[in-house]
């Protein structure tokens, strides 16, 4: 049943990457429990605009829990209190009348704040660019059924590939580690036959890029898994570690070899 709530928001406001930020309180009045969290912020922002104030900047796009754009820490939990739910899919029925809600951006050195709740997650793209792919130029594909993939592997690969790249794992990790994200991509590709040729160079390159972005390292707290809206499991981290170790043990430096002309 629809109800209405009166809330107090404590929101991190920061003009841009160079400025200092601070928390500012905003009332949110007569909020329907049928609204999504972002719709609640829309209502607050519309009011701010009408009053001539700067609305709260937050990242969002699909509002269906799939693009991974929305990103805020709500009452100390990335994406808020509901398990396996992104901020955009969180509904106000998860809150009660009179609540005070603290809203902060993802906090990690590799995710600098651009404004208010918006951070720059380009580090994730660079990690993918470093190796998170299968080199299969357009046109090279053989018949899609030529290489059967055991259903279980296909399903596990899909589980890992479900990652939306939101960064909640980094935000939740006490060490701001990106291992859950990186391992999800490593696993997705390592579980498929098509991913085998580059399996070991991929994991090495991706981990190297992850490190150079200055993410922290996993100490196996499990916070990432608990925060992940897509249910990516830490088994992927173990798989990545295993591949990384194997890769490091068997790594051969590349020797330049010329063609025969």
């Amino acid at each position: 049943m629809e109800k209405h709530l009166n809330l107090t928001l404590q929101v991190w406001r920061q003009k841009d990457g160079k400025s200092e930020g601070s928390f500012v309180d905003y009332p949110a009045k007569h909020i329907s429990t049928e609204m999504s969290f972002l719709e609640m912020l829309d209502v607050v922002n519309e009011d701010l605009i009408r009053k001539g104030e700067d609305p709260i900047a937050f990242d969002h796009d699909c509002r269906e829990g799939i693009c991974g754009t929305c990103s805020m820490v709500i009452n100390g939990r990335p994406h808020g209190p509901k398990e396996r739910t992104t901020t955009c899919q969180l509904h106000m029925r998860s809150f009660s009348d009179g609540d005070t809600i603290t809203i902060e951006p993802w906090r990690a050195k590799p995710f600098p704040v651009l404004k208010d709740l918006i951070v720059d997650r380009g580090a994730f793209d660079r990690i993918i660019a470093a190796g998170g792919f299968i080199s299969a130029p357009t046109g090279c594909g053989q018949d899609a059924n030529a290489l059967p993939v055991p259903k279980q592997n296909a399903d596990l690969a899909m589980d890992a590939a479900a990652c939306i790249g939101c960064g909640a794992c980094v935000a939740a990790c006490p060490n701001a580690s990106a291992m859950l994200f990186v391992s999800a991509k490593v696993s997705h590709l390592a579980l498929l036959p098509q991913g085998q040729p580059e399996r070991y160079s991929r994991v090495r390159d991706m981990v190297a890029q992850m490190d150079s972005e200055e993410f922290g390292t996993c100490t196996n707290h499990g916070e990432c898994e608990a925060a992940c809206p897509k249910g990516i499991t830490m088994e992927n981290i173990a798989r990545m570690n295993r591949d990384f170790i194997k890769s490091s043990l068997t790594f051969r430096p590349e020797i330049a070899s010329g063609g025969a002309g």
Partner: protein
Amino acid sequence: MELNARTPEGPIEKSWDKHRFDLKLVNPANKRKYKILVVGSGLAGGAAAASLAELGYEVECFAYQDSPRRAHSIAAQGGINAAKNYHNDGDSIFRLFYDTVKGGDFRAREANVYRLAQVSVNIIDQCVSQGVPFAREYGGLLDNRSFGGAQVSRTFYARGQTGQQLLLGAYQALERQIGLGKVKMHSRHEMQELIVVDGVAKGIVTRDMVTGEIRSHLADAVCLATGGYGNTMYLATYAKGCNGTAIWRAYKKGAAFANPCFTQIHPTCIPVTGDHQSKLTLMSESLRNDGRIWVPKRKEDCGKPPSQIPEEDRDYYLERKYPSFGNLAPRDVSSRAAKQVCDEGRGVGPTGLGVYLDFEDAINRLGAKKIEEKYGNLFEMYERITDENPYKTPMRIFPATHYTMGGLWVDYNLMSTVPGLFVLGEANFSDHGANRLGASALMQGLADGYFVIPYTIGGYLAGVKPGTRITEDHPAVKDAMAAVQNKVDRLFAIGGKQTPTHFHRELGKVMWENCGMGRNEAGLKKALEVIPQIREQFWQDLALPGSGNELNQSLELAGRVADFLEIGELMCRDALERRESCGGHFREEWQTEEGEALRDDENFCHVAAWEYTGDGNAPKRHIEPLKFENVHLATRSYK
């Protein structure tokens, strides 16, 4: 304006092969001397940028999101069609072609659709080799499901996240090229203007959405893959940022806009709950494989809980009206049928704008576990949004704006009426006619990006001398930059009281009422009066905080709404001029006795392409006649 479709002559089966052979090639050593801008990183843009870079061109790619991986294509759920006939159930390239032409209600160009069906096969091969984890059967081979408008199982899928997985495939290929330094990616950059010199596209102007910097990018060719303009309706299944700005700028610089009124209303979305609603969520069409759609037979029963309405008092209206396609009737037909029963007062839910999508039979037949396996994440999503458990009580659904078949007019090479400007994916008008079948937008976006543009752009560039790009001091560049700056300044100068969303919502209401599922002359004429009024109010009473030199989401939105306010008018104008019903365009004046769409092939078997003639002037309507030589014009029937 001349609309030369450049469709190859001869038998349709051979036309793409022949055309590819006839296209001139660019010498491999010369490719890196050409620069191509790809605006958009969705399926169409991402695939194009990666493929063109693989060929050796210098590519720059743009997206308004923070990462190319977040393009709207990510949200597609159901699947992608391909004529693989892996299931031996009678599929073929010709059948996919036939279904698509018929599904589009005979308003698409045959040759384009045939090519689409041909390359559909290569798309699946390509995606699998990139590591797209399509659903598989126990033997390890690819699984398929059925989608609306087809009687064969040809839809490949990756759980309820097909678009996501296909996009990640393209994104990874794109990131690979970025890592190799072959593509320069500009995320959080919005295209605001097209630069045209002597009628030829030479570059774009963008606004950096973080710093506010306005700058030009100059190239030998420009590809727009910026998606659809369905957000004109305000409430839609589109991502919030989807906009018509890029194609609208191109339109104003001379690219014809084809069939703007052809919009798709998707039958299975979660109904609106209140005024706060900011977008609508789609429930994949694949649900119609196992779900049965019904409403109570009697109005009086609508308030009762569904479990208390016995079988004999339920009207499974799709099964009743369309026995051979049943719940899998195409989208336009299903949406209209839902509207009809709700108009009769038999809609369900608090607003009366909803119908049931019921899984009880399927759960009894297959077991809850199997249903969970197939649709688990969709059911979860539904429950998250509505707080109702679809395993126990039927889903409530209602149609919502979902896709735009219209878009910039392109020839067989995907080139617009502005030479050097190519348009890909949902942004063009090419393949779906007046109604798009499910699982074919992903197919088209990837076909355009992976398998069409890499060939056809070469044919264009072979005729462009390397090293003839214009420089930043060219007057056309300065003019374009000034126009963008000017628009920003004008928006800030208004100093009114209403938010950008306010005007967007107003526009949406007018559009949905008059240019939505049912359209008629009086309504469209009214809309054409009201929209300019809203636009005027917008330019008089918009409140815009902050400045242009910073990250300013209100400014971004205001700029988009300003364009929607113009696009909406063109949509209504086109709808008014098309005096027939076809596909998603249902003019109430033209219907059969049973309420089905009544086409007028005599007068409207053509593409309508609109030419911009200056602000304040009426745009000019051109036509490209359509010929149907392989699939014969017939009344579309799904009975």
